[in-house]
């Protein structure tokens, strides 16, 4: 009898508190800068922290506040930098911006012990595999944040340049022409 009473009261308490939290979030909402929202949506959204901010939203706030450069996000690459610069009317030297080769994480099957630590930290669930079995990275979902590499106890996870195939091959930029132009 006691048990039932305790369970019901605690559940009710939980629900009531949850409701109050929700209501508070709604009523005491801080007016957000819509620009920050918009920028946040443009970012990869994986909260990987490579930019030096704790996540994509703080990075977006820093950008809007003018404290960060449009080139801050490595996973976003040059394309994102150009979009951000356009959005915020920032001047950036895109021609000088070096596009680093896109990377992707890969598990070396020989040394994976199936500890599943990588699985837990991956922000985009790009890693698949059951515990105690070899894990693998779905290249299409990996944003190259490198978190998995840090936690892997056997160093079997590494970042590798994305392989060029017929599907993602692109023309190279023509050599710059002679002086002036």
């Amino acid at each position, binding site marked *: 009898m006691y048990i039932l009473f305790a369970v019901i009261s605690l559940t009710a308490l939980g629900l009531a508190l949850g409701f109050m939290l929700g209501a508070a979030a709604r009523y005491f909402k801080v007016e957000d800068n819509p620009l920050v929202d918009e920028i946040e949506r443009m970012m990869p*959204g994986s909260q990987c922290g490579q930019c030096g901010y704790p996540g994509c939203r703080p990075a977006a706030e820093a950008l809007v506040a003018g404290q960060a450069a449009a080139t801050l996000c490595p996973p976003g690459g040059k*394309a994102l930098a150009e979009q951000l610069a356009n959005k915020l009317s920032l001047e950036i030297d895109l021609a000088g911006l070096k596009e680093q080769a896109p990377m992707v994480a890969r598990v070396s099957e020989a040394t994976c012990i199936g500890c599943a630590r990588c699985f837990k930290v991956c922000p*985009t669930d790009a890693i698949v595999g059951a515990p105690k079995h070899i894990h693998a990275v779905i290249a299409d979902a990996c944003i190259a944040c490198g978190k998995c590499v840090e936690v892997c106890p056997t160093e079997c996870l590494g970042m590798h340049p994305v392989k060029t195939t017929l599907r993602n091959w*692109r023309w190279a*930029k023509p050599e710059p*022409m002679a002086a002036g132009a």
Partner: protein
Amino acid sequence: MAFPGFKLTWQGRRKIKGGVHLESRKEFTADKPIVSDLLLPERLYLPLQQHAGQPAEPVVRVGDKVLKGQLLAAGQGSISAPVHASTSGTIVALEDFPAPHPSALPAPTFILEPDGEDRWVELGPEADPFGLAPEDICARVDAAGIVGMGGAAFPAAIKLSLGRRTRIRTLLINGGECEPYLSCDDRLMRERAAGIVDGIRIMLHSLGCRHAIVAVEDNKPAALAAMLEAARPHGFIEVAAVPSLYPMGWDKNLIRYLTGKEVPANGRSADVGVLLHNVQTAYAVQQAVRFGRPLIRRVVTVSGGAVAAPRNLEAPLGTLLSELLAYCGHRPDRTVRYVMGGPMMGDRLPHPHVPLIKGACGILALSAGEIQAEDAKPCIRCSRCVTACPVGLLPLEMMSRIRTGQTDAAVGFGLEDCIRCGSCSYVCPSRIPLVHYFKYGQGELMARREAQRKTEETNRLAAEKQRRLERTRQEAAQRKAQAQAAASGGAP
């Protein structure tokens, strides 16, 4: 003839924008008959992807014996085309092999070792095409693996069935062949005009359409005469001479010139009731529908200054380009550039050890004297590129934007409408590789769209993971609470 435009208006044809007069260089091959009795090579290389869309899905295994014309890989997905064996023999491998692509990157390819017997698989019964239902014709064209043979390699059956849905008034057959060197369509029209006309009638029947125009450039009088002769009994097939001006074979140019209709900037020719097919495609359709033969060979021009005996070959698909070149007396030491297709819009190849595919209309080994030097100098703003552009773009402005990395600004100048015809690069006195900039720029746009798609996808995945973590946390908290409650309740 003081005003080149005069003849055009006098003929009631519309004038087309831009364009350049190129040296034709077709005389190397145009007067020699097609050679079709080539010896079979030791191995044939058949890529699973020889067409726009999804690669085909293998249906035979390594080690299987196959017959000529047997299905090796079936089309999959909404846009695709099957691949057939070009001769009888054994499938010795299915592995990565360099593709006929500017990168020559490897792609999955069947390797077929011919047994020398060249024995046909049992073909479907010969049929009277005009007794077949239109859907059946489309099905036969699809099963034969026919794709656009002028270079684009878009599956022909899809175009035909699309045409049935959007009411086509005119079937336009492109025998323009406006690129220098190429003469395979010219030869085919001279030698097999009856087959082409039959193919056109079959396509008209499947489209439920009563009018066709065959467009032939006016520098091919023999082909014109042959087509006129073959089409004479069929009043609804018109044969029209079009001026030899590059890029006359561009679909929007042909349509504007012959029908006066303007295809909207990002529309298709079907939007104005016109469907375009190449003459070799028409011939392949005839072979497939009348005789049940799949597309396993094509006529290709082998030419260029580094080829001693240039000519047109009807070769089995999958033959290495290097072997076709060798057959025509290729001099590797004199070759400075390999091209698949025409010199203007074709693909430069790093080497010729790649297979012949359905869309390859030319194989060129060019010597030093035949290509433009690449010592770009600054733009002098002479605006010749603007005059030459058939789309009416401003190549110099697009180029300077792309050069400084402002892809968006280049899009504002029409980067996405550029058809990469190379007319601008051809006329530029400063030898700026304009079209290369536009290929690069369009590639950037494609990469960006791809990145955008991925960002959306990873955003979704990240949000999903957050939600899942939140849920497990809550569940864990609840379980803990319940366990505590149970513990406190259990001890009175």
